[in-house]
């Protein structure tokens, strides 16, 4: 029996669509993204219907998530970060639903693809640059040459700081993609053993069950880590460097 743990990450085109040189085909990845977005919006809509001062179970559940993000933004950026709470909350829900949806059979984990996660990280980098220039003007460029460093060291410090700034989307992307890919490869390999071992397959089945629960935890933790690190990177744009 062939075990191909990487086959699950292959893109499959369902409906080919092309506009000029741009390929916007509906693939398993884009369908999963649409599904995650629709599901998140639908749940938010259903759970926030008939809002009460003393929340019902569904409302309090969504409030827990929302407060969690609001607190995260307040703790990392402060009250001036209020305007980006919708962005951070959407980012968190998109990644969380992407990670969790990928755990179901026949679905596709789009958070395991560099192109998807990388684009989100670049969005964060672009936003942090825009916010920095908006808040501090061109003084924001001081982040590449912090105060108190001798001018003689500028030729060394400035390239390092620029690479350090540009490396943030890479580290964000690598972390999430690595976690998702490794988790799904492990699940695939163990699941293949369940079939291959016949009657003794219940042993790997037990492990696969435990691993699924573990992966669900990882899905939540990674969505949290991705969002809090984006907050930390964005917080540097709000701080002034004099």
């Amino acid at each position, binding site marked *: 029996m062939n075990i191909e743990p990487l086959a699950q990450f292959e893109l499959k085109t369902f409906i080919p669509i092309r506009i000029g040189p741009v390929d916007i085909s509906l693939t398993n990845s884009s369908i999963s993204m649409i599904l995650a977005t629709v599901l998140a919006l639908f749940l938010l809509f259903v759970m926030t219907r008939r809002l009460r001062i003393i929340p019902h179970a569904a409302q309090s559940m969504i409030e827990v998530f929302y407060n969690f993000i609001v607190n995260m933004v307040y703790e990392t950026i402060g009250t001036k970060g209020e305007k980006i709470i919708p962005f951070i909350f959407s980012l968190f829900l998109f990644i969380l639903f992407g990670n969790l949806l990928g755990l179901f059979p026949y679905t596709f984990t789009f958070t395991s693809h560099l192109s998807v996660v990388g684009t989100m990280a670049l969005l964060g980098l672009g936003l942090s640059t825009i916010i920095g220039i908006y808040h501090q003007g061109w003084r924001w460029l001081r982040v590449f040459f912090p105060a108190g460093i001798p001018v003689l060291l500028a030729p060394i410090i400035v390239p390092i700081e620029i690479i350090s700034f540009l490396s943030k989307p890479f580290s964000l992307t690598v972390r999430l993609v*690595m976690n998702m890919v490794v988790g799904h490869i492990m699940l695939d390999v163990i699941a293949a053993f369940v079939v291959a071992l016949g009657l003794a397959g219940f042993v790997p089945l037990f492990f696969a069950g435990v691993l699924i629960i573990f992966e669900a935890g990882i899905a939540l933790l990674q969505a949290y880590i991705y969002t809090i690190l984006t907050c930390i990177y964005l917080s540097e744009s709000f701080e002034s460097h004099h």
Partner: protein
Amino acid sequence: MDDREQAFVKSKELEAKIKALHEQVVGKVPDRLDRQGAGLAVTIMSDLLGGLIAGGVIGFLIQRFFDTKPFILGIFIFLGGIAGLLNVYKYVRRIENGKNK
């Protein structure tokens, strides 16, 4: 400081008071950071890796664009490694600052 910031600072003070009282009654609760050791390790590792990749990509692009010798790539990978270390240092310093608050 506006009203919202004051309210936020007050709520944090209250939280600290509750935590202190809670510790008196049930004993010290392990810090959140201590429980997230594995998460911290992955964060640090990907920061180091991210620096190297960013340095490599920038070096490669410069080398391709200006058609220079490969030593530019080497220099940028080296700088990327230092940038990764700098990111880890900034991250850890942030956690330390948060702990001392």
